[in-house]
C-alpha cells in the first residue's frame, strides 16, 4: 500500500494550522486550550494511523528549479516516530491545563507546542534533505521558545539560549553534511534526486561507495554525527539538556525526553543502512556508551528530580545511539525498541515529576519521601515506569537493554575490534548499574517515611493523572507481551533501519546466555550498591564540583563569555557611535575587497584608458575638480555646501554632454533637493572644528584609496563591455516604442522592461522612510525610568516651544 499524499500533508499541516489559530482557541477556551490541543493531536494521530502499513514516497513540488520538493516518506520507522510524537502530544495537551493553571503567556505556550508537534511529525516523515533540515531547526526553535517560557527568570533565559546555540549550531553541521550528500547524490542518482533521501536510501550501497570514492564518507558521517549528537544530547554536548529543565514540566516530558531529543537518534536510525560500517561502529557505539555511562553517573549526582530525569534521558539516548552504533541486527533492534520503551516510561516519569513538583511544592530529592501515602495512583505509575527504566525484568526496559547487551557482545563477532570487543560490554554493564541506582532512588521517593518538613501534599486533578497512567499502562502492556509491540510496529521500524532485518523475537530468557548474565550482574550490583547511594552521590559531587574543567558546561560558559567579550571589543572598535569611524571601516573594507577581487580575477592587467574627451567635457570636469577642492578647503558650512553643489551640477552638465538627459535631470533634482535640505539644517550643524594632523592624514589617504578604487572599477567595468552597443542596449532601443509605447528609453526601461527592479527600489525607499521613522519614534522608548524622564523632557520642550512660538508670532 502506498501512502496518500493528502493525508500525510494534512497530518503535518494540522498542528501548524492549530498554532496559527491558538489565539482564537484561547479566546474561546481560556485555560482549557490544552483540550483543544488533545483533539488536534488526536486528529494528527488518527490521520497517521490510517497510513499504517503503507510504505513509499509522496511529494509536493516546492522549488522545482533546485530539485527541492516537499517529499514525505512513509514507512514503519517514520510512522513509529510520528505516532509517538502525536500520541504523547495528545497526552501532554491533556496534562497541561491543570499544570499550567494560572500562568500567563499560555497562548505562546500552546502555539509553540502546536508548532513543535507539527515540526516533529514533519521531521519524522520528511524525505527531502532541505525539508528535514527546516523541520529539524523548527523543533529547535520551538524548544527555545518553550525552555525560555518563564521570561522573567534569568536561568530560564540562559538555558533557552544555550539549547538554541547548541542544537541550532549542530543543525548547521547537519546542513553541511546534507549538502555534501546532495552533491554526491546528484552525480549518482541524477539531479532530480539531489535532495531525495528516500532515493539515496534505496541506493544505499551505491551512495556509500561513491562517498568513499570521493573521500566524503568520513566528513559526512562526522557532520551528521555532530548534528544528531547535539540534538540528542550526546557527550560532550549533553549539558544543554539538564539546563533545559528550566522549561515547564509538560514541555520537558514532551520535547526533552520523548520526542525532540530523539530526533537525532531517529535520524541516525534513518541513515544507518547507508552509512553503516566499521567507522560507524567506532563512532556511534563509543559515543553512545560514553554518553550512557557519563550521564548515568551524573544522574546519581543529581539533587533535583527533574535534573535526575534529564541526565537519565541523556543516558538512555546514549543507549539508543550505541544500539544503532552496533552494526548487527541486534543493534537496530535495540535502537528501535528502546526508542519506544523509553518514550513510554520516561514521559510518564516526567509527568510524575510534574505532579510531585506541583503538589508537594519542591523538587529536591532530599526533601521528598513516603509519597505513596499522599499519591497512591502516582506511586503505582512510578513503580512500573521506574522499574522499566532500571531494566528490571519483566518490565519493558529490560527487553531493550538485553538487546543492547547482546549487540555489545556480538560486536566482536562482526568486526575485528580487538580490546573494544571486551570493553563495549563492560562499559554497557557499568553504565547500567548506575541506571539501576538512580531508578531505585527515584522510586524511593514514594517509599519510606515522610520527611517532617514536607508540607501537606494535595492529590492531583484527574487530568494530570490520566496522561502518565495511560503511558504506564502502555508500558505495562509491552512488559507483559513485548512480542505484541514488536509485531505491531517495532518490526516495521526495524526493517527501515537494519541492513539485513530478520524476524525479531523478544521475551523473557529461558536459558542462560552471556547477556542474561550481564543483566543479572547489573541488577545484583545495583541492588547491592543501593544502600551506599548517598556515599556515591556525595563522592561524585566531590569530584565534579571542585574541578569545573571536567564539566562541558564550564567550557561553554568560558567560550561564550570569551566570544561576548571579543564581540563587545569588536563592536566598540568598529561601531563606536561616530559616523566617521563607521565610514572609515566600511569604505576601507569595500575598497580592500573590490581591489583584491580585481587583482584575483586578473582584471587590472587589461585596463585601457580611452581619451575621447571633448573640450567642453574637459572644461566641465575641470570646474568639478576645482569645486571639489573648494569643498575641502572651505571654512564655513555655507561655502562648503555651495561648492559641493557646484561639483554636483557640473556632473549633471557632464551627463548632458554625454547625451544622457534623464540621468542629468535626476542628478539636477537630487542635487537641488540635497542643497535645499542642507540649507534647512545648516544652522544645526556644529561649527567646523580643527582636527588632528593624524586624522587628516587618515582621511586624505582613505579618500585617495576610495577615489582610486572607483576609478579602477569604472575602467574595469567599462573595459569589459564589448565595443559598440550591447545586445540588450540595442534591444531596448529597438523595442521601446513598439513594446513599451514610449520614446524615452530610460523611462520605458524603468517602468516596463525592468519594472521588477524598480519595484525593488521602491521597497528600498519605503523601507528607508519606515526605518527612519521607527528610529526616531522608538528613541524615546527605553525602560520605564527613561520613559518617565522623556515625559519630563517632553513637558519642558513644550514649554520652550510655546515661548519660541510666541516670539515668532
Amino acid at each position, binding site marked *: 500500500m502506498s501512502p496518500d499524499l493528502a493525508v500525510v500533508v494534512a497530518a503535518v499541516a494540522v498542528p501548524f494550522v492549530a498554532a496559527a489559530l491558538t489565539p482564537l482557541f484561547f479566546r474561546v477556551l481560556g485555560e482549557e486550550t490544552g483540550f483543544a490541543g488533545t483533539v488536534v493531536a488526536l486528529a494528527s494521530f488518527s490521520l497517521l494511523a490510517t497510513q499504517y502499513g503503507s510504505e513509499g514516497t509522496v511529494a509536493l513540488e516546492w522549488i522545482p528549479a533546485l530539485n527541492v520538493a516537499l517529499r514525505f516518506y512513509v514507512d514503519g520507522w517514520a510512522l513509529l516516530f510520528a505516532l509517538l510524537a502525536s500520541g504523547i502530544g495528545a497526552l501532554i495537551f491533556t496534562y497541561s491545563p491543570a499544570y499550567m493553571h494560572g500562568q500567563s503567556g499560555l497562548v505562546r505556550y500552546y502555539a509553540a507546542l502546536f508548532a513543535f508537534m507539527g515540526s516533529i511529525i514533519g521531521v519524522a516523515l520528511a524525505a527531502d534533505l532541505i525539508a528535514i533540515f527546516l523541520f529539524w531547526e523548527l523543533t529547535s526553535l520551538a524548544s527555545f521558545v518553550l525552555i525560555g517560557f518563564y521570561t522573567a527568570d534569568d536561568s530560564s533565559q540562559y538555558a533557552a539560549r544555550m539549547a538554541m546555540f547548541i542544537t541550532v549550531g549542530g543543525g548547521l553541521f547537519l546542513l553541511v553534511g546534507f549538502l555534501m550528500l546532495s552533491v554526491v547524490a546528484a552525480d549518482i542518482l541524477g539531479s532530480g534526486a539531489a535532495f531525495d533521501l528516500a532515493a539515496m536510501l534505496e541506493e544505499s550501497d551505491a551512495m556509500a561507495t561513491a562517498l568513499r570514492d570521493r573521500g566524503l564518507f568520513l566528513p559526512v558521517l562526522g557532520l551528521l554525527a555532530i548534528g544528531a549528537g547535539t540534538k540528542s544530547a550526546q557527550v560532550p554536548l549533553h549539558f544543554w539538556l539538564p539546563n533545559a529543565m528550566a522549561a515547564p514540566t509538560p514541555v520537558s516530558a514532551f520535547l526533552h525526553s520523548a520526542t525532540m531529543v530523539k530526533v537525532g537518534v531517529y535520524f541516525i536510525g534513518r541513515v544507518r543502512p547507508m552509512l553503516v560500517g566499521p567507522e560507524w561502529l567506532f563512532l556511534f557505539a563509543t559515543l553512545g556508551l560514553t554518553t550512557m555511562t557519563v550521564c548515568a553517573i551524573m544522574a546519581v549526582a543529581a539533587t533535583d528530580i527533574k535534573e535526575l530525569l534529564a541526565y537519565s534521558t541523556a543516558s538512555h539516548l546514549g543507549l539508543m545511539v550505541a544500539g544503532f552504533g552496533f552494526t548487527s541486527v541486534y543493534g537496530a533492534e535495540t535502537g528501535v525498541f528502546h526508542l519506544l520503551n523509553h518514550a513510554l516510561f520516561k514521559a510518564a516519569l516526567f509527568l510524575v515529576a510534574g505532579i510531585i513538583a506541583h503538589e508537594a511544592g519542591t523538587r529536591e530529592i532530599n526533601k521528598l519521601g513516603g509519597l505513596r501515602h499522599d499519591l497512591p495512583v502516582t506511586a503505582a505509575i512510578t513503580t512500573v515506569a521506574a522499574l522499566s527504566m532500571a531494566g528490571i525484568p519483566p518490565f519493558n526496559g529490560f527487553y531493550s537493554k538485553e538487546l543492547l547487551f547482546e549487540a555489545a557482545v556480538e560486536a566482536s563477532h562482526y568486526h575485528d575490534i580487538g580490546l573494544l570487543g571486551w570493553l563495549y560490554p563492560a562499559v554497557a554493564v557499568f553504565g547500567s548499574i548506575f541506571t539501576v541506582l538512580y531508578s531505585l532512588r527515584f522510586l524511593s521517593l514514594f517509599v519510606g517515611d515522610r520527611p517532617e518538613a514536607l508540607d501537606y501534599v494535595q492529590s492531583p486533578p484527574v487530568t494530570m493523572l490520566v496522561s502518565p497512567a495511560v503511558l504506564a499502562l502502555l508500558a505495562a502492556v509491552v512488559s507483559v507481551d513485548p512480542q505484541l509491540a514488536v509485531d505491531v510496529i517495532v518490526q516495521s521500524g526495524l526493517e527501515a533501519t537494519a541492513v539485513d532485518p530478520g524476524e525479531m523475537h523478544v521475551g523473557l530468557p529461558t536459558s542462560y546466555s552471556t547477556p542474561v548474565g550481564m543483566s543479572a550482574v547489573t541488577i545484583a550490583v545495583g541492588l547491592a550498591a543501593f544502600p551506599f547511594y548517598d556515599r556515591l552521590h556525595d563522592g561524585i559531587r566531590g569530584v565534579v564540583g571542585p574541578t569545573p574543567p571536567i564539566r562541558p558546561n564550564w567550557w561553554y560558559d568560558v567560550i561564550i563569555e570569551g566570544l561576548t567579550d571579543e564581540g563587545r571589543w569588536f563592536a566598540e572598535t568598529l561601531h563606536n557611535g561616530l559616523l566617521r569611524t563607521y565610514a572609515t571601516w566600511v569604505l576601507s573594507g569595500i575598497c580592500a575587497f573590490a581591489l583584491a577581487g580585481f587583482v584575483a580575477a586578473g582584471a587590472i592587467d587589461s585596463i585601457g584608458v580611452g581619451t575621447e574627451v571633448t573640450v567642453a567635457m574637459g572644461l566641465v570636469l575641470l570646474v568639478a575638480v576645482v569645486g571639489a577642492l573648494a569643498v575641502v578647503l572651505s571654512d564655513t558650512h555655507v561655502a562648503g555646501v555651495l561648492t559641493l553643489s557646484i561639483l554636483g551640477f557640473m556632473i549633471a552638465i557632464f551627463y548632458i554632454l554625454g547625451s544622457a538627459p534623464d540621468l542629468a535631470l535626476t542628478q539636477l533634482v537630487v542635487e537641488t533637493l540635497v542643497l535645499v535640505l542642507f540649507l534647512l539644517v545648516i544652522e544645526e550643524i556644529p561649527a567646523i572644528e580643527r582636527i588632528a594632523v593624524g586624522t587628516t592624514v587618515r582621511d586624505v589617504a582613505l579618500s585617495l584609496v576610495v577615489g582610486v578604487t572607483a576609478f579602477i572599477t569604472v575602467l574595469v567595468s567599462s573595459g569589459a563591455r564589448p565595443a559598440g552597443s550591447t545586445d540588450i542596449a540595442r534591444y531596448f532601443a529597438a523595442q521601446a516604442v513598439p513594446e513599451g*509605447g*514610449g520614446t524615452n528609453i530610460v523611462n520605458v526601461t524603468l517602468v516596463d522592461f525592468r519594472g521588477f527592479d524598480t519595484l525593488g527600489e521602491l521597497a528600498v525607499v519605503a523601507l528607508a522612510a519606515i526605518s527612519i521613522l521607527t528610529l526616531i519614534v522608538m528613541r524615546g522608548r527605553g525602560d520605564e525610568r527613561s520613559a518617565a524622564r522623556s515625559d519630563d523632557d517632553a513637558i519642558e520642550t513644550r514649554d520652550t516651544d510655546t515661548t519660541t512660538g510666541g516670539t515668532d508670532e
Partner: protein
Amino acid sequence: MTTVIMRTTARAIVPIVLVVSISLFIEGHNLPGGGFIGGVLTTTAFAIIYMGFGLDFLERGILGRDVDPGKEPSRDRVVVAYRRLFAYGFAIAVVSGLAPLAFGQPFLTQTFVMLEGVPIYDHLEVASAIAFDFGVYCVVVGGLLTILSVVGAE
C-alpha cells in the same frame, strides 16, 4: 531662513516647481522625466516651503489645523498623510503589477493604447505603465517627505 526674501521667493517658485514636477512626471514616458524625477522635484518644492515658513506651516497655515507644539512630529496629521502616501504608492505599484495576471500575462507586464481624435491633443497615448510610475511618484514623495519632516523636526 524664514526671512522675507526667502518667503517671497518661495511664493513665486513653489507653484512653478510643482507644475514642472507634475509635467515631468506625466511626460516621462516620451521625454526626459518620470515618476522618480517628478517625485524628487515635488519633494524639493515642499522642502522650500518648510525652509521659508517653518515645519508647522502646512498644518497650521494651509490646512488650518491646530498643532500641539512639541508633540512627536511623527504623530502630525500631515506626516501621517505622507506615511499613507508612500504606503498607498507602493500598493499602487504592486497592484498595477498584479493586474496583468488577471489577463494571463506575467507580473508587471505593461501595455499601451493610442486614443485618436481626442480634443486638443488629437491623438493621445495612454500607457498602463503610468499607473506603475504613479506608484513610484507616490513612494518617492511620501518617503522623502516623511524623512524630511521627521528629521527636520528634530
